[in-house]
């Protein structure tokens, strides 16, 4: 019994088809970056996948940038960090610039094209532009730009089902945001729709 099989068998005892997705979501504090990752994590758990979410903030809670890593896998997850994500979801230009070079070849880069221009030097990746802020503005609240992006990502990569993400909303949104639940759902769906059209 090789080391690898041993480890997997010991921990899981089988499963469905092997999945492994490493996602980095990045933007500014206040854009709801963390919530995006957490929704993904909840959805993945509901679907019995292994998942780890790991955040990285700017200065304590304030000002500047925020990013989080979500790793979904049918295997047990070792490293909760990655230097080479499969997918990048970039909500602003500076963060796009920072992380775009790290995405794996053949990877996917989702760009919030309301605030950032798609990278030109990653023609080895699939680049998807989503005008998330504009769409959110249309929906009536700039704050749901994150949901638009997440919806698009889910539709595109299908790491989890959109319903699982929607189901997770209730658990993840902070109490004082509960009123916005329907709007968030709408934004997720709108994002998915957009991605479907691409």
């Amino acid at each position, binding site marked *: 019994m090789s080391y690898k099989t041993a480890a997997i068998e010991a921990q899981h005892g089988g499963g469905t088809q092997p999945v492994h997705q490493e996602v980095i979501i990045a933007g*500014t504090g206040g*854009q709801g970056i963390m919530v995006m990752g957490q929704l993904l994590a909840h959805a993945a758990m509901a679907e019995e996948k292994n998942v780890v979410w790991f955040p990285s903030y700017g200065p304590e809670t304030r000002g500047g940038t925020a990013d989080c890593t979500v790793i979904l896998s049918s295997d047990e997850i070792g490293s909760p960090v990655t230097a080479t994500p499969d997918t990048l979801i970039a909500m*602003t*230009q500076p963060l796009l610039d920072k992380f775009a070079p790290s995405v794996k070849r053949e990877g996917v880069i989702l760009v919030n094209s*309301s*605030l950032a221009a798609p990278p030109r030097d990653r023609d080895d990746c699939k680049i998807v532009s989503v005008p998330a*802020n504009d769409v959110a*503005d249309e929906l009536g609240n*700039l704050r749901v*730009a994150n949901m638009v992006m997440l919806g698009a990502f889910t539709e595109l990569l299908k790491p989890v089902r959109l319903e699982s993400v929607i189901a997770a909303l209730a658990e993840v949104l902070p109490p004082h945001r509960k009123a916005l639940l329907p709007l968030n759902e709408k934004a997720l769906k709108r994002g998915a729709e957009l991605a479907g059209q691409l």
Partner: protein
Amino acid sequence: MPTITIDREICKGCELCAHFCPQKIIKMADGFNSKGYRVSCLIDCKACTGCALCAKICPDVAIEVWR
């Protein structure tokens, strides 16, 4: 004629200038700047008294006042 200029790339859309302006001539604009903030704008230049209250409360020093 007194007036103000608002740097829309610096503005964070906090609305305090609008709140403080005695003439009530600052409103929040449609759309947003490159950081994603909905910015403020002067809607009636003629009414501006140059009192600078908007500038004095602006946390981001986005406003300059001319008189």
